[in-house]
């Protein structure tokens, strides 16, 4: 079968699909210019001042911007801003105005093409496609590709950020355990401490500091966030001398080295270790 473009037919039909594609592309260009121009004119050109109908992406972006502000320690004020005006305008433009215009243009196109006595260029219909087409096409494309792409991003974000947050939390917990070990060192044996040593302690039962002494024998479960799946921090301790010990911390997340042998007998989990002296400690990440 031979593919042949009938140029004569295309030239004689200003509402041919190729021309409509052109109107839509031209409309998209004009809409982009108008969007940028409007935001510049009113002096509010930010990534969130857009008339492109993606209110869910803009709302999400504004929430992240707020989170970053709060992360920097700035107070958050929930006041109406120009971004909100653009947001509500984009919802109206995208979901209320563009769709009826596009469907009207489609219907009129069909009528115009059936008309035997057509003479003039169908300006209104071309304008209808040009103004509403980019928006409708954009909505349709994001409706199909958006869920797939954003779902993949969400999965990857969850995985990476959970891991990082759990490493940070493990480091924080290990610092706390090291603090308790140092505290134990300086407390007299009469008060339940080591009396200046971690080994050869002058007491009846175990002569070394244990995890029980520093309340770290059970995994630490701390709720840092209401919806965040924080893992438990498990610790192991090894006393080297009277004033030197090491603490290993493990969380049940897979680290970068899958074959890494963890101190607690597991394999491939994230692990850090802290070398502690009475007044200092050094922390290093073994598997992250």
């Amino acid at each position, binding site marked *: 079968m031979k593919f042949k473009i009938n140029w004569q037919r295309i030239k004689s039909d200003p509402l041919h699909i190729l021309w409509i594609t052109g109107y839509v592309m031209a409309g998209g260009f004009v809409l982009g210019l108008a969007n940028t121009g409007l935001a510049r004119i009113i002096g509010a050109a930010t990534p969130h001042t857009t008339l492109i109908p993606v*209110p*869910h992406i803009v*709302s*999400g*972006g*504004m*929430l*992240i911007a707020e*989170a*970053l502000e*709060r*992360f920097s*320690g700035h107070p958050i004020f*929930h006041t109406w801003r120009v971004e*909100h005006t653009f*947001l*509500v305008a984009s*919802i*109206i433009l995208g*979901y*209320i*105005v563009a*769709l009826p215009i596009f469907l009207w243009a489609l219907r009129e196109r069909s009528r115009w093409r059936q008309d035997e006595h057509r003479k003039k260029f169908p300006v209104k219909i071309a304008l209808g496609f040009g103004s509403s087409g980019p928006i409708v096409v954009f*909505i*349709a494309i*994001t*409706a*199909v590709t*958006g*869920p797939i792409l*954003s*779902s993949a*991003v*969400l999965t990857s974000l*969850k995985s990476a*950020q959970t891991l990082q*947050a759990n490493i*940070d*939390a493990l*480091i*924080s917990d290990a*610092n*706390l355990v090291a*603090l*308790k070990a*140092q*505290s134990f060192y*300086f*407390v*007299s044996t009469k*008060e*339940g*401490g080591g009396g200046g040593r971690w080994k050869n302690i002058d007491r009846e039962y175990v002569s070394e500091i244990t995890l029980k002494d520093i309340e770290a024998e059970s995994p630490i479960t*701390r709720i*840092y*966030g*209401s919806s*965040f799946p924080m893992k438990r921090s498990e610790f192991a301790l090894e006393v080297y001398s009277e004033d030197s010990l090491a603490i290993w911390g493990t969380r049940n997340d897979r680290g970068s080295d899958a074959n890494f042998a963890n101190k607690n007998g597991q394999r491939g989990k994230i692990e850090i270790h802290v070398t502690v002296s*009475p*007044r200092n400690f050094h922390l290093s990440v073994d598997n992250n």
Partner: protein
Amino acid sequence: MIWILASSILVAMAFIATFLTTGNTWDAAIAGGIVSLVFVIGFLYRITRPPTSSTQRRWTIAISSIVIVGTILHWNIMYRMTQWQYDTLHLIRKIIFHGVAQGMLQPEGVNTLGEYAAQHGLQRKSLGDVFRETTKFDTGDSAVVVGKEWGHMSMFVSSLSDTEVVLVAQDSITIDGEDSHFKNFDGRYGMTQDRLRITKRGLEYEIQN
């Protein structure tokens, strides 16, 4: 035309009213989106009625359904994703705060306790006196409360006596989902706060909020 105008006004009203009530952009966008959805469904119902041919009706309904379902899904995923990031950033901020607070308070506690424990003989100084000598806090001559600001973190000596020293580190961000009614050392509410208590029985570190 009248329907478009009326729906536009309704969308704007739903958005503005929700935003003014909750102060939440996402809630407002969802309210506006729901009104839009009702309009779109009503509009599609209207244009697919006879005399529209059944073929056209089927195509319109099929394509519209895909777009509507896809858009709703996309909204849902974006909502979950951004809320997740919002929570995570806040979580990381909290963990960093607790880490920095520990890093600041730990040397104070260990040095004070270490110097206190190293004393021999009968002329032993009190814990408070040892703290005054070793600390980087400017405690002056009395057991007054002294604040120090490091970035967005304030540190205070909240109690200073012969037998006990209590240090407090307080951040300037409010914690959602935890105790927003927690009264902080400086009188504000709901900020992250850690406390280190030094006694001769050792150091007690507490994440208070």
